[in-house]
């Protein structure tokens, strides 16, 4: 640990500021969690109620209306599969960009990133028509492919920056020792950047878990993820705050728990280059 970080810990002003920001950021989630256990009247009450008789009726109502476990399973499948495929595709790409760069590499990377600047809705109609033609509407396969592709640029960039940290001489030593590119990747680069790859994977999964746009537009009851399940509670019949909150809480709970257990890894990976 560097001396700078211990000093930061002791600084009371920073501690207070940190707590304020933390509370400010988590308050909406906290409020939503409270609302999930309120009746609809309590949830809509003005002024807002902090004391109320908790109820599980919203969760009962939710499970009557949507098949929670079906959608949760879809969320799990889509986030794991899309992230794993994206990393498998991104690793060789990032390897080539980091260690065998040509004069076009930079332009290629910027172009990849610029794809992310485009509003997704701009590609909705063509992609929708393609999926219809291929008979892939409301399939997990289509959602995996699209989520994977939309996260791919970010994942390539992250892996690229981790790979860049590895001295080229180590790979050259591997090359002298008889490791061709795929083996350099497998035996040297991946083990050396594992913390970075892990946090890239975690970030990819969180992004995929929270992805709503494509899910709502190209899936329905069969392949829909939890994002779709939540969306179905905000509809033309009105806003049911308590039920919406219950559905939202149920959707974010798995990723929240997942994030809680992996936060050490996540932080370590994201600061991997800086502290080396």
């Amino acid at each position, binding site marked *: 640990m560097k001396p700078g970080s211990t000093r930061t810990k002791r600084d009371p002003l920073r501690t207070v500021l940190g707590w304020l920001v933390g509370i400010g950021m988590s308050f909406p989630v906290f409020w939503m969690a409270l609302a999930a256990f309120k009746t609809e009247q309590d949830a809509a009450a003005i002024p807002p109620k902090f004391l109320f008789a908790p109820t599980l009726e919203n969760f009962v109502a939710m499970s009557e209306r949507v098949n929670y476990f079906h959608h949760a399973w879809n969320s799990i499948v889509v986030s794991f599969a899309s992230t794993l495929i994206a990393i498998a595709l991104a690793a060789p790409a990032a390897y080539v960009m980091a260690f065998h760069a040509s004069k076009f590499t930079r332009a290629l990377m910027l172009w990849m990133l610029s794809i992310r600047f485009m509003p997704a809705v701009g590609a909705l109609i063509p992609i929708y028509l393609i999926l219809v033609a291929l008979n892939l509407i409301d399939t997990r396969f289509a959602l995996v492919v699209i989520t994977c592709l939309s996260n791919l640029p970010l994942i390539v960039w992250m892996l690229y920056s981790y790979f860049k940290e590895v*001295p080229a*001489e180590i790979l*050259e*030593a591997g*090359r*002298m020792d*008889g*490791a*061709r590119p795929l083996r350099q990747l497998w035996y040297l680069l991946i083990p050396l950047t594992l913390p970075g790859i892990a946090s890239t994977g975690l970030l990819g999964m969180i992004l995929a878990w929270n992805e709503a746009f494509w899910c709502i537009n190209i899936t329905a009851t069969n392949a829909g993820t939890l994002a779709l399940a939540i969306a179905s509670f905000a509809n033309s019949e009105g806003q049911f705050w308590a039920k919406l909150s219950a559905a939202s809480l149920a959707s974010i709970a798995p990723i929240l728990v997942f994030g809680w257990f992996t936060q050490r890894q996540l932080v370590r990976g994201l600061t991997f280059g800086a502290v080396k």
Partner: protein
Amino acid sequence: MTALALKNIHKQYGPVVAMKGIDLQVQPEEFIVLVGPSGCGKSTLLRMIAGLEDITSGELYIDNVLMNDVEADARGLAMVFQSYALYPHMTVADNMGFALKMAGVPKEERRQKVLAAAKILQLEKLLDRTPRQLSGGQRQRVAIGRAIVRRPKIFLFDEPLSNLDASLRVQMRIELAELHRKLKATMIYVTHDQTEAMTMADRIVVLRDGVIEQVGSPLELYNRPANTFVAGFIGSPKMNLLSAEVVEQKEGTAQMRIGESSFLTLPAHAGLAQGRTLTVGVRPEKLQQDAAGSISGVVAVVEHLGGETLCYVDIAPGIRLTVKLEAMSTVQVGDRTRLALEPGAALLFDADGKAMH
């Protein structure tokens, strides 16, 4: 039979020509040192031999087989990198055995070969450690061990000692020389340090700007440098290179003037025509203090090194001579002194810097 032959090797990066026609033959079991200032192309040349850089034109033969387009690992060479380039996530044993693993050697055989190499370098006790648990000198040994395990046709070293502190460097230098004798291997060693070149090489190759300036044994280069560059590069402290004018020729001698008031008398030489300006090279140890000496100047700096004393004498504005004196010398800064040159010790170079032997 040659272990390595380079024929008219060129290297070009876009418009920049880094190597300009390198020709070199290396005999089996020879210890060759490539030496030169930074940017001279010595590392590039080594990397081209290793197969890590493409050869723009020319031919590279290893054991008389053309290797230009053979992949690095198939050339039968092993390289020790400046940064050691150990695999940080593997143990010493796995580092050393990685090439064998890649070649599909069975585990037990691998273990024995690693152990044999570890014994040569006294690494047996460190085999289970990871590189970060090792000192700089130990890492260096592991890097060498990794090369030994492969039993390469040629060992390549890219400035392997430059990350070590001075005393360790001297020790590793001796160990490397012993290792060379023990393994009877062909070695090509790159360094910018002329002391390493002088102490270890069978033959030194002096490079500058992608051109070989001279190839020869350490003493050949020291005593008969081909040009002023080699003369100035080889030897420490550096050779004095002085511009001198031939002022008089008589009775088989030539009188030369350096600066305004210092003179050298040299044996007559075909090139020593009256009025001609040449470069005279004088090693610091070939000069002595002598009251009857023909070179006079003022002592500017004195360095007592214990075993010897280095003395810098200004003989004219902008002309400073390095003189190596004995340890007990009582010379002091500001002294006016006269110096004499050992007979036959001066080297002559023409206006282009070429030696006139």
